[in-house]
């Protein structure tokens, strides 16, 4: 957890980050396999390649801080501590899923850990995050909100209106733009007239920060600074993190709009491999890391087994989840 200005990262902490990044990676590789087997339906958006962002950001937060994410949400949910069983069961549409099979991959929720979703309409959740930040201030709570979205989302009205209000009211929020270069099949140069997205923050009177995001420690340090500003009443920060998704936009996207060479080039900055190399440099043995990998494999195998065997989503849960209060109504 963040501890004010001191953001030095111990080898121990880095090991924990490695374990979590590997957990996300393996979770999604197995989810992709389960999707191909028809055990998961609908849309499945993988986070593979972006893991350092979720893990570094989660480490900069306290348990009672609020987090909002798009449909590309597995990494964030796991990094915030959602059990892999609950996440996988949700993808399988099971009753033990974090959203009891009602939401699926795009709509993971874990209110206990202050993870407020998992949203499907581009830009639609950004104002919700500002709303959580508004609530924290209204109640004089020492809580920060972090909102993630892609670079594509910075073109839609919902994003701009939320930024406008957050900047005006100096809300305790950090906007994290995970710039993975493509909005579905469209590269950023065909969607945005500027290269540096922090220019958009300037117009709303907020701080901007911009960096490459394959090093989990770098993500952690930059997030700590922004979170501290928000906590200290200095208002919101807009952070643009350069990243890359190694897979298609979703499972149904063959990603023909980019070359294999381009993907391979980016894979040289695989955040999981980078962290592993850093740990080796710090004196951690290959064996120790292999042990971590084996434990992660076990965890993910268990999550798949759990999801396979869990009871299906229940009709009663669906009916009970439309309203808080239902009224007897004829017809």
């Amino acid at each position: 957890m963040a501890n004010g200005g001191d953001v030095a990262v111990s080898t121990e902490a880095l090991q924990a980050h490695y374990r979590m990044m590997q957990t996300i990676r393996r979770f999604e590789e197995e989810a992709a396999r389960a999707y191909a087997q028809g055990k998961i339906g609908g849309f499945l958006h993988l986070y593979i390649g972006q893991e350092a962002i979720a893990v570094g950001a989660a480490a900069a937060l306290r348990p009672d801080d609020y987090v909002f994410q798009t449909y590309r949400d597995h990494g964030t949910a796991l990094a915030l501590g959602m059990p892999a069983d609950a996440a996988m069961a949700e993808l399988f549409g099971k009753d033990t899923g974090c959203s009891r099979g009602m939401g699926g991959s795009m709509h993971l929720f874990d209110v206990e850990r202050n993870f407020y979703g998992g949203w499907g309409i581009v830009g639609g959740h950004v104002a919700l995050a500002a709303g959580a930040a508004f609530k924290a201030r209204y109640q004089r709570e020492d809580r920060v909100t972090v909102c993630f979205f892609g670079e594509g989302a910075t073109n839609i009205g919902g994003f701009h209106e939320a930024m406008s209000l957050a900047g005006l009211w100096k809300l305790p929020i950090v906007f994290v733009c995970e710039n993975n270069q493509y909005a579905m099949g469209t590269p950023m140069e065909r969607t945005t007239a500027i290269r540096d997205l922090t220019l958009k923050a300037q117009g709303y009177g907020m701080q901007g920060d911009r960096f490459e995001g394959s090093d989990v420690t770098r993500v952690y340090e930059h997030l700590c600074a922004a979170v501290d500003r928000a906590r200290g009443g200095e208002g919101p920060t807009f952070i643009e993190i350069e990243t890359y998704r190694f897979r298609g936009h979703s499972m149904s996207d063959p990603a023909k709009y980019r070359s294999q060479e381009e993907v391979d080039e980016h894979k040289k900055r695989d955040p999981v491999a980078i962290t592993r190399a850093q740990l080796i440099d710090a004196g951690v043995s290959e064996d120790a890391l292999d042990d971590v990998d084996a434990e992660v494999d076990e965890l993910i195998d268990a999550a798949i087994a759990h999801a396979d065997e869990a009871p299906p989503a229940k009709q009663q849960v669906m009916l009970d989840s439309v309203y808080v209060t239902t009224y007897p109504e004829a017809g």
Partner: protein
Amino acid sequence: MREIRYREALNEAIAEEMERDERVFLIGEEVGHYQGAYKVSAGLLERFGDRRVIDTPIAEAGFAGVGIGAAMTGLRPVVEFMTWNFSLVAFDQIVNNAAKARLMSGGAISVPIVFRAPNGAAKQVAAQHSHAVEALYAHIPGLYVVAPSTPRDAKGLLKTAIRSDDPIIFLEGELLYNLKGEVPDADADELIPLGEARVGREGADCTLVAWGPSYHRALSASAKLSEQGIECEVIDLRSLRPLDSATVIESVRKTNRCVIVHDTWPYGGPGAELVDRIQRDAFDYLDAPIGRVTGHDVPMPYASELEAQVLPTDERIVKAVRRAAYQE
């Protein structure tokens, strides 16, 4: 006649109308380089260039509004939403501007624009991505709402829509795009008028009214009912505004029973509008209450078994018809 897919029929309609009228252009997310999220616009960028096939950022309110403004001043845009769910971001533009400009200007301004996208549930895409929007848009005077269920209708109705001088909400179906069917040859230039329902199957015992994907369910349910000795007349409305109630009334006067099938929710849905018209114009002919088979009154759940329960099924249609025939 040849057999082509629904998606190809739409593609041909857009291409032919772009060929015919230089003012027609296509705008939306991934319509160009990506060849369309559902490949409806495949090849159009290569054929017509980026002046007329325009990729946009994710900015539905923006490009819908740009389309409306361009239409008001003389162009004929075809605006593609990736799905109708995302049109809700542009709802204000469609409802407050496209549907209002003409009346507010005393008839001086018209808005010849087509908004098109797949409508309704796909498979397990959950609550925010499964809207069937016909009730939302058919409610609005100033908009026409079209929902073809076959490749031939898709092509003929889209060509008519593009030539129309009014804003058109054109509802396609993700689960229909691969459907094959007979479509007149390319040079036939077939235009199918708005507001004419089509009788897809004749029968004397019960009228089934549907459109879009649910039309196909009504057909398959009527095949099952036929085995049980109940012959349904299946009407594909094809457009919800203008609504061809005459064809429905005529059929109900013959069959004396009616069941309406739609994917969208029951409350204030097109089925409710039809029930009102039928009871007014065919009251004395009805032998049973009019049945409705609709999507259940819940946001769409993700789990596949629950989604299957929420959407109309053959079984539910069969049951509703048997109830109307007092056999259940």
